[in-house]
């Protein structure tokens, strides 16, 4: 056990004009999660602290926050990842803070829904499963890891300072997931929907999404593949 210092951004719109930092110290093992530290603060020192959490092991995506300047899941970062120094915790950037570390993610989910994140087919379903080659199913293996935590989208430099209408990295991962699902028949329309400055072309290759993704999805690479597909398929169409 060692004493760890956490500087946490606090904000309650009912009483505060702007956010402020409060420093807490807790005893923690190096192998404990940052989430364990937050829980210790909330359960033993200050019950007014607000943050979201649920599964505690990087599957549900609730506890995305900015930890020492980088968007991460508090349950996936361990105390030892920060070398015993002070850990600074802020809410996800780009979204309205509802209280402390809780942000309004409705705009995030709305943008994901814009891309129609479901399988679109016209043929009637067969009696059994649709066949799909093993190789085809492998094409989306990385994209289906997305847990909609919003780390990538919250930290995208394009969204924060250049073009807030950019659809954002997470929705593009979902475009990729359906574009390369051999069962989906909406491919061309999905590409057309992304063929504009606020769609795939909004991405300026900062790679921040790839760096922060807690599920290690090669987000930027997938966006670039979408761009190439747009060039290939939509240009072919006009030729």
């Amino acid at each position, binding site marked *: 056990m060692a004493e760890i210092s956490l500087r946490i951004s606090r904000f*309650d*719109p009912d009483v505060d004009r702007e956010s402020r930092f409060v420093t807490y110290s807790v005893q923690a093992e190096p192998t404990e999660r940052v989430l364990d530290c937050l829980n210790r603060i909330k359960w033993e020192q200050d019950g007014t602290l607000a943050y979201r959490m649920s599964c505690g*092991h990087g599957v*549900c995506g609730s506890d995305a926050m900015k930890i020492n300047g980088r968007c991460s899941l508090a349950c996936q970062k361990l105390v030892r990842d920060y070398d015993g120094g002070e850990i600074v915790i802020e809410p996800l950037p780009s979204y309205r803070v*509802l209280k402390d570390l809780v942000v309004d993610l409705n705009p995030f989910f709305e943008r994901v829904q814009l891309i129609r994140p*479901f*399988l679109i087919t016209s043929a009637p379903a067969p009696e059994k499963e649709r066949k799909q080659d093993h190789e085809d199913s492998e094409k989306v293996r990385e994209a289906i890891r997305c847990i909609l935590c919003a780390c990538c989208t919250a930290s995208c430099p394009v969204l924060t300072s250049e073009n807030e209408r950019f659809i954002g990295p997470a929705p593009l991962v979902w475009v990729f997931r359906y574009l390369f699902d051999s069962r*989906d028949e909406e491919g061309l329309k999905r590409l057309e929907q992304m063929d504009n400055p606020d769609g795939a072309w909004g991405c300026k290759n900062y790679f921040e999404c790839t760096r922060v993704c807690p599920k290690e999805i090669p987000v930027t690479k997938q966006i670039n593949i979408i761009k190439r597909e747009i060039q290939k398929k939509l240009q072919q169409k006009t030729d």
Partner: protein
Amino acid sequence: MIFEHDVVVVGAGLAGLRTAVEVAGYVDVALISKVFPTRSHSGAAQGGIAAALGNEEPDSWEWHMFDTVKGSDFLADQDAAEVLARDAPRAVYELEHMGVPFNRNPKGLIAQRAFGGHTGELGRRSIKRACHAADRTGRVIMDTLYHEAVRKGIKVYPEFHLLELIHKEERVEGLAVYDLALGEVHVFKTRAVVLATGGFGKVYKTTSNCFANTGDGVYLAYNAGVPLQDMEFVQFHPTGIRGLGVLISEAARGEGGVLRNGSGERFMEKYAPTLMDLAPRDMVSRAIAREVREGRGVGGQDYVHLDLTHLGIERLSEKLPEISSFVRIYLGLDPVKDLIPVEPTCHYMMGGIPTDLGGAVLGQSGRIFQGLYAAGECACVSVHGANRLGCNSLLDLVVFGRRTGKRVLKDLPHLEPQSLAEGADESVRMGLDRIKERKKGIRPRALQKQMQEVMSTCCAVYRSETGLTEGLDSVRSLLARLDEVAVENKGRRFNTDLTDCLELEYLLRLAEVILVSAGARKESRGAHFREDFPQRDDLNWLKHSLVQKTDQGPLVSYKPVTITRFQPEARVY
């Protein structure tokens, strides 16, 4: 505020989503969830969903049904187990048609793998029946169903915490909920309520369950007079990451992983000569506990090793990427070359709210509780009896979620809207105010921690009269201190300090029911192992437990098990 919908589904995991998707378009349905829907705990299911598709080798629904019944230690109702196994292939094809990205075999069909207790030819050999999407099966099914719900325009109320089932005798009238974002109490007027609130693994210290799994729906049904069924049957999954409880899927053993004790022995050879590491969970957890007790844990300590080192990096990254990353992140180990320290972790509640095959809740004396339905882990149909098989949970959620939806549609014309009495939510408002007004007291999490210690010590894999009595005394003394619980957070926004108090009461009352039910059952069956009664006793105990809330405390009664095709036999693997 007052909201009004024909049907309100509480809980947005797979059971709730599947029910809502079934009724959407026909009636006005709303989905309430204490977390945002895609954060629900179904998403943590890893290994797969069972269905006798026969994509890898010949299989049949009868074999699947037999495994389910034998796995349940013959306590499952066989009419329910038959529905589950027969409907499984249709349910999995339906998910595939909706877009679930299952792994594929070389023939382009849904890939299937071995799992605990899944056998061919009525127990002769292990069989590949688990359909899967790597080790994220629950998550991808949940994302698919959630987006299907969005596509159907289902109204979702996220971060609404269930406070009360409003009912007049055995007829539902509505719900009272707590809006976390605004700190307000709302009332839902509705003709039908579907509880799909999941389990309550948080009564235990070490659990694979998420923080949200506090049994809200189960407790509130009990509080409304519904007797709870088979509550003594708590599944401990054999392979939780030591100390953390995070799940390492049975798929790890399905893909060829083996358990080893401190001397490196593959000890399951002794306990289950045919299936070995793929014996059902209750048996494997007991075997681990026994190895540890007899001093054969690793370094004489309280854990054993899961060995995946012979699987190779390719298989681990294609079939078990998620658990490999958990091992790397939380243990700093590499499953390609390191042994993984594991211990049993509380995983699943076989018991819960009794329902018929259509999800209608059975109230006192087995009468239908009008307008109340339950599906998923919170329900007890009972398909899992005394021990659930791996991959039967996701299956249960989609099979019985759909059936519940169909039943609601059929019943709804006969369920007139009730005139909700003015001030129906008065008592819950007052209850919340009382907690907030208390100036000083114990923190809710401090009591919760004590309860979890008690349950993990007294009512886990091994149980006895002495331990259960001690446990019950301790839990009752904690219950007596509920009035001393205070919150320092008096604010209104995201006051989870306050909801912690509510969850604490739900958990403590359910812990009491588990202990009472376990104390009464004087035999060993499935996950309920009594050291003082180590044998299964079909003559006296082949029956379901029911625990009813009364003014004198929980009252235990019993009801018969439905047996159709398979007579009870010795359970060897």
